[in-house]
């Protein structure tokens, strides 16, 4: 006798199929709308390449900044209970609940010369609006919570007692963090960085409000779509899909590599 078919599994199979179809089909379907020649021409299109490179660059810078800003807080939140912890965690996650154009406008008010921060930037000749700085700020705002949350979860997997043992053996807090905690949670943090990066490169709403120019790839595609229509938006679309997916897969493989090695807990 084979496995009994449980109703819940049948439902899971059907809904699972719907989800996969919903995720994959629109992406694949784009290919029907164009041909190899157009794609070749688009690859040679400097404007497209520049925008894609800008997207990749800004998303990467964003991820690195998020890493250095987010890791210490994530570690503290993973290890300590305090009165206002819930509040702090909610504040960290707030950007995820705000529509992105709204977030963009909020940031714009801060960066405009009428706010103290905007004024300070202006006084020091730092231009944020309409530059790469603006792009990174927009990306950082929407993607930072993902890094903090996933790093926090990763740190929680390392038992406090393991750190205690390390301390009692003579390692100070920093060396314990670097030699034990961080190494053991590195894979989880890397997954978090991938999600952060993916979130950053896909950001559009907040970015166009702060920096329509220089154009990141989503802005360029949006502009081509509104000005010239589908036919001209799709080839750039396809290239961006390719690049995003390839980077995503590569990072994913890196973060999964050697998983069995010491997954004991």
């Amino acid at each position: 006798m084979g496995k009994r078919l449980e109703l819940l599994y049948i439902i899971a199979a059907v809904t699972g199929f719907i989800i996969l179809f919903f995720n994959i089909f629109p992406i694949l379907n784009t290919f029907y709308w164009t041909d190899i020649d157009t794609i070749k021409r688009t690859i040679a299109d400097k404007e497209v390449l520049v925008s894609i490179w800008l997207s990749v660059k800004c998303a990467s810078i964003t991820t690195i900044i998020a890493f250095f800003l987010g890791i210490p807080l994530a570690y503290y939140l993973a290890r300590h209970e305090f009165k206002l912890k819930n509040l702090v965690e909610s504040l960290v996650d707030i950007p995820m609940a705000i529509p992105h154009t709204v977030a963009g406008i909020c940031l714009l008010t801060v960066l405009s010369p009428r706010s103290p921060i905007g004024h300070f930037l202006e006084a020091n000749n730092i231009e944020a609006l309409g530059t790469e700085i603006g792009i990174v700020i927009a990306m950082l705002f929407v993607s930072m919570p993902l890094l903090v949350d996933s790093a926090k979860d990763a740190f929680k997997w390392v038992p406090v007692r393991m750190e205690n043992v390390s301390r009692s053996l003579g390692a100070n807090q920093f060396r314990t963090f670097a030699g034990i905690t961080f190494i053991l949670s590195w894979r989880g943090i890397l997954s978090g960085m991938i999600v952060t990066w993916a979130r950053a490169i896909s950001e559009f709403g907040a970015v166009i409000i702060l920096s329509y120019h220089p154009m990141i790839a989503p802005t360029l595609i949006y502009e081509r779509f509104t000005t010239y229509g589908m036919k001209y938006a799709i080839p750039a679309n396809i290239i961006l899909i390719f690049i995003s997916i390839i980077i995503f897969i590569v990072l994913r493989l890196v973060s999964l590599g050697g998983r069995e090695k010491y997954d004991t807990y």
Partner: protein
Amino acid sequence: MIHIKNLNIQLGKFQIKRIELKVKKGEFLILLGPTSAGKSVIIEAIAGLVPIKSGKIMVNNRDITELKPEHRNISICYQDYNLFPHMNVRNNICYGLRFKKDKNNPQYQNNFKALVDLLKLEDILNRLPLNLSGGEQQRVSLARGLIGSPDVLLLDEPLSALDPNIKSSIQEELKNIHQTLHTTIIMVTHDFIEANYLAERVAIIHEGEIIQQGYLEDIFQKPKSVFAARFIGVKNIFWIENPQELSLFGLQKPAYIGIRPENIYVSQHPIHADYYFQGEIGDIQNNQIYMEVKCCNSRRGYRAYLTINRFLELGIKKGLPVHFGFNKENLICIKENK
């Protein structure tokens, strides 16, 4: 020598109160108490891992109360081993040496050899913790804690997570380590049998306080309270106030008495014992390696342990008339008032 003076700890609503402890160099002290009595918190405080409210911790006349854990030279081992999963056994054991100022001291090399020998780790030095059994992991964790010659080794229920037969072999190794290396050891356990086997001195902890401490024999023979008596395995504890019984047990005034179940002799024939009763068998409980039977006379029931052989030999069943009793030296007087 370790001297803990009036240690108080507040963790949320839980309190550790007025802990006074003295442990001599090379001594094996066991903190004995039920789950969540606060034993682990006390040893973590000694290691500097939980903040204390007040009190002093002195080691070899050095006040370490304010020192960070890494400067105390006190190792801790937990019941769940906590080996570093990304390092092989050798690197786990030698981890602490990286942080020693005198890391090239040949003494550590000797320690390493001695510990590998003592704990039989030779064959697993290159393995990752993932591939080790619980017993092997605990042995590695002990070696890791001992290699730097700590002033004190703290053990938090080191035997609790192990299978019974592995447990007894690690228990023996612990005793062996203590006798060979003369390390000062403070161990936490809830199991009085472990305490009985390993400890020189025992402190019984109850709800965050030490309710009694002293040499093993003293504690086992003269528990000061009903709680302590019960916790060290005295299963028969009775309040004696009837004049007839008072004179039988030689008591001046009403008091608690206790008798360990293993000290009660049971027979089908009259026996010679300082205290001798007749009655019948009540409840019977099978504890796998021994039988626990209740011998009831007209006043009360006494719990007695019998080996399975003895149990079968006597043909014991519920309601069987029996003679039973115990001797004076096994009578425990508990100095607690009702």
